[in-house]
């Protein structure tokens, strides 16, 4: 089967994130980019399928030059080929543009059976992108999968969200987004890293993906930031050391605050 994995580079989550002064987009240069952890798990799932049922795995990443590192890392983990979507005009792309561009990249791969993605990236797009990509490709969206089974042309996932657990079923081709609990991603081996250097990576831009669109037709974002302000850090309030009475005093505090 043919699998496409969508991965994304994000600023290191341990680091502080800031908005750029100039245009209020995420200042990606200010933090070290790393392959988003959840995306590594999507890649791991694809590579597990490659080993168990046989698959050709294409990894796709959209972003500046550093996104190529994300592609290389997944190639080193064992994927077969990569597509790096790189275009200066995509800076500040919104959810809809991101989804359109990713969907267009998936369409360049022949006979795709399964698209895999992380269910949320840790830098703010809140999980809407995979569902939007599926909708644009008219693929069933099996999102927030904690468990994934592919069998006899169908895919089944166990989905877990705040409103409960559900089992989802759909025919292939389909899109699955995975949660951070689905697996433990492998580390690339030295051999894998060396082999990755020889694997094919295609770099494409907007003009390759949308040859018929006129340049002016490329909307990058449909929203505008009116204002961005840092929030004041929270300050510590009352501090007590328990001497046996803290539970009672805390209750009194909550009652005084009308929280009980």
């Amino acid at each position: 089967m043919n699998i496409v994995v969508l991965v994304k580079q994000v600023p290191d989550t341990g680091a502080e994130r800031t908005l750029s002064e100039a245009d209020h987009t995420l200042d990606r240069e200010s933090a070290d980019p790393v392959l988003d952890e959840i995306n590594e798990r999507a890649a791991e799932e694809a590579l597990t399928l490659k080993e168990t049922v046989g698959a050709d795995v294409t990894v796709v990443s959209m972003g500046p030059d550093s996104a190529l590192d994300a592609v290389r890392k997944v190639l080193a983990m064992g994927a077969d080929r990569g597509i790096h979507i790189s275009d200066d005009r995509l800076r500040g792309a919104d959810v809809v543009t991101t989804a359109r561009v990713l969907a267009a990249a998936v369409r360049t791969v022949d006979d795709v059976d399964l698209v895999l993605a992380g269910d949320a990236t840790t830098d703010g797009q809140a999980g809407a992108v995979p569902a939007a990509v599926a909708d644009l490709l008219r693929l069933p969206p099996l999102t927030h999968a904690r468990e994934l089974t592919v069998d006899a042309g169908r895919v089944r996932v166990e989905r877990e969200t705040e409103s409960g657990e559900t089992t989802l079923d759909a025919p292939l081709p389909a899109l699955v987004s995975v949660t951070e609990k689905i697996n433990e991603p492998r580390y690339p081996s030295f051999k894998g890293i060396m082999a990755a250097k020889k694997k094919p990576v295609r770099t494409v831009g907007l003009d390759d993906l949308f040859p018929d669109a006129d340049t002016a037709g490329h909307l990058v974002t449909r929203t505008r930031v009116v204002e961005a302000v840092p929030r004041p850090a929270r300050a510590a309030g009352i501090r007590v050391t328990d001497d046996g009475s803290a539970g009672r005093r805390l209750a009194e505090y909550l009652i005084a605050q009308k929280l009980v």
Partner: protein
Amino acid sequence: MPDVLVLVDHDGERVHKSTYELLRAARRLGDPAAVVVGTPGTAARLRDALARHGARRVYAAESTEADEFLGTPAVDALERAVLDLAAEAASPAAVLVSATTAGTEVAGRLAARLDAGLLIDAVDLDPSGVATQIVFGGSCTVRSQVTHGIPVIALRPGSFEPEEHPVEAAELQLTLPPVDPAASARVTARRAAVAGDRPELTEAAVVVSGGRGVGGADGFKVVEELADALGGAVGASRAAVDAGYYPHRYQVGQTGKSVSPQLYIALGISGAIQHLAGMQTSRTIVAVNKDPEAPVLDLADYGVVGDLFAVAPRLTREVAARRSTG
């Protein structure tokens, strides 16, 4: 006034509180029009409750298979409603959904179909359509506006206080296209998350969370008992989830849920930046930690240095006593 479409969250019998919040927010922009997606008869059951909260129109987008597919019927219904209104030259001012996991996905799919601007996880909305979002783990407030298409806005549950505003509601039928099974995910089994009477994590006014310091699945009883005494929901840190103390769907933080309750109580949680990202917009934060150096104590409104197994049960008893007398 233009219509503002509101996607109704419900369980077939009852409208979820998050929908009343959307209706209140919608009134700032125009006339709320509630879209009920469900099996036949659902809209009729929910109509009075929706009218009491200001819905002037209730769209019944009903079909026998509406509950069988993930998200698709809701996206289809909202798209249909937008296109119908646009055909009457009465395009809606916005489409509002709850920024739950399912709602966010519906919003993303709808915006992609409509080529429209999308604002996710808004905590406030002003009459001109400018939405406020809190980004980067609570460190930045951003106000944004949609500049293209019909604004699709996902509002964070708990951001608006529901308010009754009784009006007459007209019920309208919205015909759903048949679901294409090759482009949809079928729900074949469902297990609800909400145990007993506990409120949903993202909607609760009080959240009591446990971390690695709780020490095990058994220890979470202490967390649950305090949550129940306060009428709150239970949350967990990722370390507690990873250790198997509590299910993943209760995880609070950057890769879990974002919550902003009136009261957040952190028990045995150190306060890593990724945990704070999901709770630091809570109104009041209380932390119990035996390590005086734990970062969570630096931002707690009330911090207790002590053993959670001593402090929490005592607090539970005090609260229960107060509740039974007060």
